[in-house]
């Protein structure tokens, strides 16, 4: 955590490794990645592929997942990419992969539950990002 002085108010902010600062008002977004815990439970190789693509172990935003990053971008107005680039296209493609590849597999009960859960999170984030 860091601290700064701005406009007469003391402002706290979180600073990433290379200097991207997250203002204190958004501190609720700081979290711990769920990637490792999801990978420990997931058995199906395509589900594991999807988790690997969607969750970043090193991310400090929420659970490190694409859905959370998309919601973060929408709700804070802060886009993680350059020039306003957002995670919406990636989220749409991951939704397609989960639906077309993962959920068509013969999944165990726990894999099915996980796949549906991450898909639902992704869909809700996409709808919110699109303003629907």
């Amino acid at each position, binding site marked *: 955590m860091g601290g700064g002085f701005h406009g007469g108010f003391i402002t706290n902010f979180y600073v990433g490794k*290379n200097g991207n600062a997250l203002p204190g008002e958004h501190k609720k977004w700081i979290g711990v990645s769920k990637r490792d815990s999801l990978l420990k439970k997931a058995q199906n190789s395509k589900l594991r592929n999807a988790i690997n693509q969607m969750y970043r172990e*090193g*991310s400090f935003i929420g659970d490190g997942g694409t859905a959370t990053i998309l919601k973060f971008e929408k709700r804070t107005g802060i886009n*993680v990419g350059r020039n306003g680039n957002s995670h919406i296209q990636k989220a749409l493609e991951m939704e397609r992969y989960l639906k077309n590849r993962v959920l068509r597999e013969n999944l165990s009960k726990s894999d099915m539950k996980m796949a549906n859960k991450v898909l639902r999170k992704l869909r809700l984030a996409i709808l919110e990002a699109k303003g629907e």
Partner: protein
Amino acid sequence: MKYEDLYDDFVNLFPEDKQLFDDLSVESAAHQEDGMHIMFGMVVVPYLKRIIINDSEKTRVAFDYIEKMEKSGDSKIAEVVEFTILESILDSENKNELLRECEKYMGEETRLALNNISGWFK
């Protein structure tokens, strides 16, 4: 440069490795109709991680193409560079080794994108 053609264009840079790309696609069930984040995340990035360590000439060719993607002026294309290629490298267990090698061949825009994305990592 067209979004839909990114994967084919990249693979065509390395015709001698076409079988390897095909194997990686089958292994991961990556289909072009699912999109370029899928193809790059599940096929190109694993390929990149191999050549970054083993083949400097191929790494140069790959990062020349990645620089063109970042400079394309098409945000959908640049997002593949930022959220799939660079995020994956930054999230790798051997990221220091990968970065040390590939930074030699990164163009200016790719380097700026890397600096930006790495700011969102612990």
